[in-house]
C-alpha cells in the first residue's frame, strides 16, 4: 500500500515541477523582472 502512495507522490512531483517551470517561464515572458 505504501508503495502505491510513494508512486503517486513521485508522479505528482514531476507534474508539479513541469507545471511550475512552464508557469514561471510564462510569468517571466508576460511580466519580465
Amino acid at each position, binding site marked *: 500500500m505504501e508503495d*502505491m502512495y*510513494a508512486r503517486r507522490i513521485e508522479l505528482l*512531483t*514531476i507534474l508539479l515541477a513541469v507545471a511550475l*517551470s512552464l508557469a514561471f*517561464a510564462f*510569468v*517571466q*515572458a508576460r511580466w519580465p*523582472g
Partner: protein
Amino acid sequence: MRPSPKATLWVVAYFLLVLAPLLLLFPQPRPEGREFWREVSVALGFAGLSLMGLQFLPTARLPFLANVFPLDTLYRFHHRTSIASFFLILAHPLILFIYNPNALRLLNVLDAPPRARAGTLGLLGLIVIVITSVWRPRLRLSYELWRVTHDVLAVAIAALALYHILNVNWHTSVPRQRAFWIAWAVVWGAMVLYVRVLKPWMMLQRPWRVREVRPERGQSWTLSLEPEGHQGLPFLAGQVAWLTIRRSPFGIREHPFSFTSSAAERDHIAFTIRELGDFTSSVGDIMPGERAYVDGPYGTFDLDQHAGPGYVFVAGGIGSASIMSMLRTMADREDEHSVVLFYGNRNWEDVIFREEISELEGRLNLKVVHVLEDPAEGWEGEAGYITRDVLDRHLPQDRRERVYFICGPVPMIALVERSLQSLGVPLSQIHSERYEMA
C-alpha cells in the same frame, strides 16, 4: 490505514523542499526576463537538482524518517526519484540546445567557461551514476565498487551542479534563491557526515559479540549477537537492522536483515540469513566471539504499529525471518489473537523454522498453511504458489477486518496483494516488505 499525520507532514515538507527553488522564482524582485524556453529549461534544472539533492536524505536512514516510512519504500522511492531528477536535469541542456544550437559550444570543456564545464562534468557524472546503478548486475560491478563509485560521484555531482548554478549567477543572484541553495547544500553535506562519520562512530561505541551461529533449513544460518558493554537494542517485531561483521563500521560493507528473535528478549538479538551470494554465503564461517556492529532498528513493518483484531502473515522463503520474530514475540507475550500463516517454500526440506512453527501452533492461536512449489510425491497440502484460490480456501470469515503482513520476494508480494484485494481486503490493512533494498 490512512497515512499517519507524521507521514503527511513529511510529504508536505518534501514537496516544499523539492519545489522551493521554483516557488522562490516567482516573487519580485526577479532578474530580467529571458526567452520562454530558456526559462523553462532553467526552472526544470532547478527542480531536478533540488530533487537530486533530496536523495541524500532517504538513504541516510534517519530514525525520524525510517520509522515513519517503510524502508523498502524509501529505497524504491530513492531509486525512482533519482531517475526522475536525472531526466529533469537532462531536460535543462537539451531544451537550451534545441532552442539555441550555438549553445552546443558550451560542451567543449577545453574552451567553455568554468561554470559550463562544471555543468557538463556534473551531467556526465550523473549519466555514469544512473547507468551503474540501474544496470549494476548486467555490468557485473561488485557491490563494493558500485557503492564507492556511487557515493563519490554523488558528492562530486552535487558540488559541480552547485558551482554551476551559483556561478551562472542569474536567478541565484537573488539573495533568497542563493540562500536556499547554500542552505540546502549544507543539509546535503550534513547527511554525508552523518552517514559516513557520526553513525559509524556511534556504532563503534556499541559493539556486539557473536554468541552463536546455528545452521537452519534451506541453506540458512541464524546469527545470535549479544551486547558488549551496553544495554542492547530495543526493537519491534518485524523491523530490520544493518549488520557489519568482521569490518569497521566506517567501511561500506553492511547488510540489512530482519530481526528473527523475539522483541521481548533483551539479552540478545538474532538474524536468520539465507545463503544467496556475496556476504550471505560466508555467514556459516563466522565464529562465536567475533565482533559485530548493528545499525537499527528501522522500519514500520511491525506488529505494534499496526495492531488488529487478528492477523494474517504471508511469508515466502527467508521472508519468514521477520514473521518468525512476530510469532516468537506473540508467544512470549502470551498473545491470544488469531493468526493464519501462509508459508511458501520450494520443498518441505527447505521450510526454515519448520519444527518451531509446528511447536508454536500449540502455544499460539495459530493456523499454518504450507504451500510448496515443488512438493514431493504424496504431499497432501497446498502446492504451487500462494494464489487467490489458496488464500480464499484458508482465510477465515473475518478476513476483511484482519491486518496482513507479507514478506518475501517481489513477485510473491505482488501476487498476494492483488489476490487479497480481489477478495475484498482493504489495501490499507495490507503491509508488505520486499527483500530488495540496497
